[in-house]
């Protein structure tokens, strides 16, 4: 009986991280919150090192990475216990991070030093620095095609780096002030939200050609792609909206009102809901995509920036 219980406990341990959990940073509140998408409640919220902005979750390695640009560091938390495992002192202003699912490494934009930092996710050490354009912001990866995409905010372009060698494959002009990027592995398209001229540049990651210039709304910020690659989503910070694009026709299929100044967006695991952090309102919008409307608004700690699935 005792043995049986013990085995049961051990088997339970890895499932402490719920597949339906999402992590949210609150930059001004210095908090990390755990949103349980099953109960639609904030299950936990705790202090982290000052001013966390972006999140990257390495599920196989049970690690949460938080960037703290103003402290020039990245903190590493255990995904299960939420305890601080390590702090990576990068210097500069580490901002957006992307985990390479094929290799023990992570790429991080450094806003103020115009570089991409390469971090070994096993040793938690900074191992390389790659010069890119001015004020690199958003970053995405095509882990299979071995390419890393970097939006250089002040250079108005996207650079395509090799994920394995220090090669620059291409530099592609975008709209003004590219901020967030998302890669669609189903069609090889890259979506780049350009904050200043209210545009969204669509790039073919194979030919490195700009294939469309879309108009999502005012001050497009976060971008995400549905799991099947058929839709992508953009939040417009100055319109307080979430828009859904059809990835094939590149037409807007839905426009949904959010709270004030939406910042980032992700989809629920079943793809039925969108979760939007609203920076000004300090809230999380739960959006029913079928009904195309916000069905709930949950209060968040001060200054919510990014949201990331624990899955």
């Amino acid at each position, binding site marked *: 009986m005792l043995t049986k219980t013990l085995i049961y406990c051990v088997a339970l341990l890895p499932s402490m991280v719920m597949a339906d959990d999402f992590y949210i940073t609150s930059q001004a509140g210095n908090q990390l919150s755990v949103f349980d998408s099953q109960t639609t409640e904030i299950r936990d919220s705790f202090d982290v090192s000052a001013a966390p902005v972006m999140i990257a979750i390495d599920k196989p390695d049970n690690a949460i990475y938080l960037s703290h640009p103003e402290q020039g560091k990245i903190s590493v938390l255990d995904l299960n216990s939420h305890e601080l495992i390590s702090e990576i002192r990068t210097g500069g202003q580490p901002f957006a991070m992307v985990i390479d699912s094929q290799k023990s490494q992570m790429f991080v934009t450094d*806003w*103020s*030093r115009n570089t991409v930092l390469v971090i070994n996710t096993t040793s938690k050490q900074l191992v390389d*620095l790659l010069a890119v354009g001015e004020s690199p912001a958003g970053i995405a990866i095509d882990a299979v095609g071995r390419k890393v995409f970097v939006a250089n905010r002040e250079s108005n372009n996207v650079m395509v780096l090799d994920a394995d060698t220090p*090669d*620059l494959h291409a530099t592609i002009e975008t709209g003004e002030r590219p901020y967030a990027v998302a890669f669609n592995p189903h069609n090889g398209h890259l979506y780049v939200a350009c904050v200043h001229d209210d545009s969204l540049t669509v790039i073919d990651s194979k030919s490195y050609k700009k294939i469309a210039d879309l108009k999502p709304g*005012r001050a497009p910020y976060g971008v995400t792609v549905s799991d099947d690659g058929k839709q992508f989503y953009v939040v417009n910070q*100055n319109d307080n909206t979430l828009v859904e694009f059809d990835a094939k026709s590149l037409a807007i299929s839905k426009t949904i009102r959010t709270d004030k100044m939406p910042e980032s967006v992700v989809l629920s695991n079943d793809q039925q809901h969108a979760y939007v952090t609203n*920076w000004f309102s300090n809230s999380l919008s739960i959006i029913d995509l079928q009904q195309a409307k916000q069905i709930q608004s949950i209060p968040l700690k001060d200054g919510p920036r990014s949201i990331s699935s624990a899955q």
Partner: protein
Amino acid sequence: MNTIIKKLSLAGLSLVFMSSSVFAHGPTPQRVDEQIIIDADVATVWQQVMAFDQLDKWHPAVESITMQDDSTRIVKLKSGGEITESLDESDAERHYIGYRLLTENVEAMPVSFYTIGIEVEAADKGSQVIWSGRFYRADTGNFPPENLNDEAAVKAMTEFATSGLEGLKASLEK
């Protein structure tokens, strides 16, 4: 057509770091959120708020407005200095205008970028005007001097909003 990415040595980094000074934008947004109740109906208040070229008629800190084109204004401040703002949106139905800082002048206003919205809503007694926005400190590096840090930016932006709202109220209630 591959080019080798420039690799930076750790020693070289300090040089890069030293040369990075002020950016137009940064990773730390700050907020302004001020309201006032004005004893006038929404339509009357909106007429005043929507006139993008008439800010000097009611904002006590503004010396004059010069329009560069239909949607770009140069705001000359009484404290000295000029900032340029561009109108993003004027929504008569929602009674909302949105504008942004186009050309910064950190000596006149210690911020590197902002977007501001002014909205007029009906209230129990007249109208409520909400002045809100998002902005970034003047020096977005990690070691800003006191006059260019977050506190300085918040103070300046909050004062400009509150004095503006009070000026608007005074101009409509006289």
